[in-house]
């Protein structure tokens, strides 16, 4: 049991302290809208040069996992995702906070983040080499279908007004095309300005789309931001209640954690896509579909377990193949290379000590999220609710500017953030949903690159259509897409038939369910 020996390495006081420090710092950074894990890692990397390689890695891993978890706070309490991975957490998290269940939502997010994080880390520990082979099965065609699957979520996000949802999504897709095309190199939709050559930065765009409308809404009404009902039942962790909700959502939790890990393994996907896809899966599997988006805890359970599961998943291709699963992984990989560590399969044999100490550190850091998160969460809800708007609004406004500037140290991104924010607010005013814009922006370039690359490869081999459908993974994804799109129509057709046949029982049942 050599692995246990490596765990005792990770348990050294220095490593323990670094893990705890990393989680706490990461959580705080993640909680601030605009400040991302990628940025904090890039800044802290030089400090690891002088550390023991394993210790440095433990700290970086802890910051990363903490930041993904911290994103949930801003999502739940302010309705602005702290990190892109927490977009889907706002859908149900903020409605929960609004109705006085903020503490419960934060506790749930903490518990499922720990569960998801552990799932990812354990899969990394036990299954890394075979999982890396799965990652390689994902080629351009598979990425294309995965992005299309993500886009079908638009249907769920724009319940009641599919057409407006589609219009918003198309706008998002157009935004994703701005700038130099990766495939082909053409300059598109730049209107002759240098500001748009680099395209619309996804993170800056998301900050604008999600934070600016919230700011306008906060300013426009006199009501308090959150109005927690007074009473004993809302105070504290509400752990017992959280566990009973988890008990009812075991399948959702396990499915989201495993799917989150698997999507994390795919370089080019990442936390935001994992949480969007698991959210839609949770909604589809639920009996109570309509409550999603209105404060259903199952939504938070899906997104928060999935995004933390991507941490462990993302390290699979990073460590085994030397191909970073996510942007933060790229930074950690760079830190490894500067330290002179050779990545690849030998990491698990010749350099096992560093690798296993790191994985053990990641598991410990994930466990630390529990006390750190519950402690912060205990006060976060009350304090966010008690901060006067006059302080909350300028603070968030300041963070949106700092956050969007610091992604690429570029003022253009701040302008893009503000412009998109105002557009998002305006179209929200006229009844269009904004999440489809975000979805289009995030998934557009993945879908486009996948499509064109598949087309080019197919043309070279003389079988363009076949290339799109030839792998089992493609066929599987296509099946889910078709089922998702036709599912609701078939279901209502079936219901209508039933009603025709047994009008009495159906009426009685719907009466009872009310």
């Amino acid at each position: 049991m050599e692995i246990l020996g490596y765990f005792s390495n990770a348990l050294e006081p220095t490593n323990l302290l670094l893990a705890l420090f990393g989680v706490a710092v990461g959580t705080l950074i993640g909680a601030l809208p605009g400040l991302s894990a990628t940025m904090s890692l890039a800044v802290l990397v030089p400090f690891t040069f002088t550390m023991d390689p394993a210790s440095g890695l433990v700290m970086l891993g802890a910051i990363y996992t903490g930041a993904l978890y911290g994103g949930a706070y801003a999502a739940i309490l302010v309705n602005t995702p702290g990190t892109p991975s927490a977009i889907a957490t706002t859908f149900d998290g903020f409605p929960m906070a609004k109705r006085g269940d903020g503490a419960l939502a934060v506790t749930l997010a903490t518990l499922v983040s720990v569960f998801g994080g552990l799932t990812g880390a354990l899969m990394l520990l036990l299954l890394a080499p075979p999982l890396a082979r799965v990652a390689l099965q994902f080629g351009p065609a598979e990425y294309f279908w995965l992005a299309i699957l993500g886009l079908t979520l638009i249907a769920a996000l724009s319940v009641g007004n599919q057409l407006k949802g589609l219009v918003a999504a198309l706008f998002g897709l157009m935004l994703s095309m701005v700038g130099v095309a990766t495939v082909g190199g053409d300059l598109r939709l730049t209107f002759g300005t240098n500001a748009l050559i680099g395209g619309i930065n996804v993170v800056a765009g998301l900050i604008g789309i999600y934070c600016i409308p919230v700011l306008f809404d906060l300013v426009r009404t006199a009501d308090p931001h959150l109005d927690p009902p007074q009473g004993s039942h809302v105070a504290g962790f509400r752990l017992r209640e959280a566990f009973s909700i988890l008990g009812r959502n075991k399948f959702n939790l396990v499915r989201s954690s495993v799917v989150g890990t698997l999507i994390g393994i795919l370089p080019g996907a990442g936390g935001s896509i994992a949480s969007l896809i698991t959210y839609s899966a949770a909604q589809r599997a639920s009996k109570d579909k309509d409550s999603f988006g209105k404060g259903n805890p199952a939504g938070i359970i899906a997104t928060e377990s999935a995004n933390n599961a991507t941490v462990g998943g993302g390290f699979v291709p990073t460590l085994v193949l030397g191909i970073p699963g996510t942007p933060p992984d790229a930074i950690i990989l760079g830190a490894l290379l500067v330290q002179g560590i050779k990545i690849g399969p030998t990491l698990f044999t010749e350099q096992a000590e560093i690798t296993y100490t790191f994985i053990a550190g990641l598991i410990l850091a994930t466990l630390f999220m529990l006390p750190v998160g519950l402690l912060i969460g205990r006060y976060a809800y009350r304090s966010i609710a008690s901060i006067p708007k006059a302080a909350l609004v300028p603070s968030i406004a300041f963070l949106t500017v700092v956050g969007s500037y610091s992604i690429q140290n570029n003022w253009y991104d701040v302008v893009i953030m503000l412009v998109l924010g105002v557009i998002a607010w305006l179209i929200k005013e006229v009844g269009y949903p904004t999440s489809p814009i975000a979805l289009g922006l995030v998934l557009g370039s993945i879908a486009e690159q996948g499509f064109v690359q598949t087309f080019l490869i197919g043309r070279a081999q003389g079988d363009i259509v076949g290339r799109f459908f030839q792998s089992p993974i493609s066929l599987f994804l296509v099946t889910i897409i078709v089922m998702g799109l036709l599912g609701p129509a078939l279901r209502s057709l079936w219901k209508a038939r039933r009603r025709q046949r047994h009008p009495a029982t159906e009426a009685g049942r719907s009466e009872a369910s009310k």
Partner: protein
Amino acid sequence: MFTRRLFAGALALGATSLMLAPAFAQTSGGYPDKPINYIVVFNAGGASDLAARMQQKYFEAEIGVGAVVQYMPGGGGAQGWARLNSMEPDGYTIMGTNLPHNILQPMAADVGYETDDIATVNFFQYTPSIVVVPKDSQFKTLDDLIAYAKENPGSLTFSGSGSNSGDQVMKERFDQVAEVVTTYIPFSGTSPATAALLGNQVQASVTYTTEGVNQGDQLRVLAVAADERLPALPDAPTFKELGYDLVGGAYRGVAVPNGTPEERRQEVSGMISKISQNAEFKQEMEQAGFVPVDITYSEIPEFIAEQTEIYTSVAEPLGLIDK
């Protein structure tokens, strides 16, 4: 010890994320007397970042001041380069540059800067291009690959990073010297291009020696576009050995804003040379698959002219010149 360093780290995090203005003070003598801002125009974790981080390690010891690495990615580096000349020309702001990027980008489109706008003062490393296949590929040698390409015109697929990029030009040059027609599939970076190769989505890949070293046994390097074999890839033959006249790759250097005085430019070049001469640095660069070079300030104009000629002569027939 650690906690103090961590505390400093936390402070640096706050400071750097808010660092909007470059340095103010400027003393004529005693350059450098404060940390250098080293701007990388690519994402953290890429080859440019890796090279800068390796230099950063030696700044304190060799130069006496530290270097702060900052990122201004976007548009394949173009956004950062387009902003170089509006920065403080005092020698405390330096920016990583890249040939052929600085030649090909302005050639293909209006990207906000021209090749001549970038005042590179020192090229410190060369990263040769390589042609690789997965380890279990049917192509054991470069000749196998070329024979296949001749039998199946257009069907052999190469992955590479980006369109109108160094990788694409290298692929086209390969087609010319080997007298074959192959298909180039652009990806959004070196890592995705390698992933596509490892997953057998494409049959071969044009990439850099650094990637060949990183990937180790997973890949077979069929040929290196360098004059000599690399210490880090001793078993990989050069194109020249195999009878093809193909040498090329990326040169990474350091530039200053074009308002920087002549004397300061030479000082910056000297500073980079000093780090390049550190034996440990050299060894680390070689291990990673870079070829350390030291093209100093006085040699730059001739070098850039020479490279521009090579790329213009290739890019024109390819239709890369759009303007």
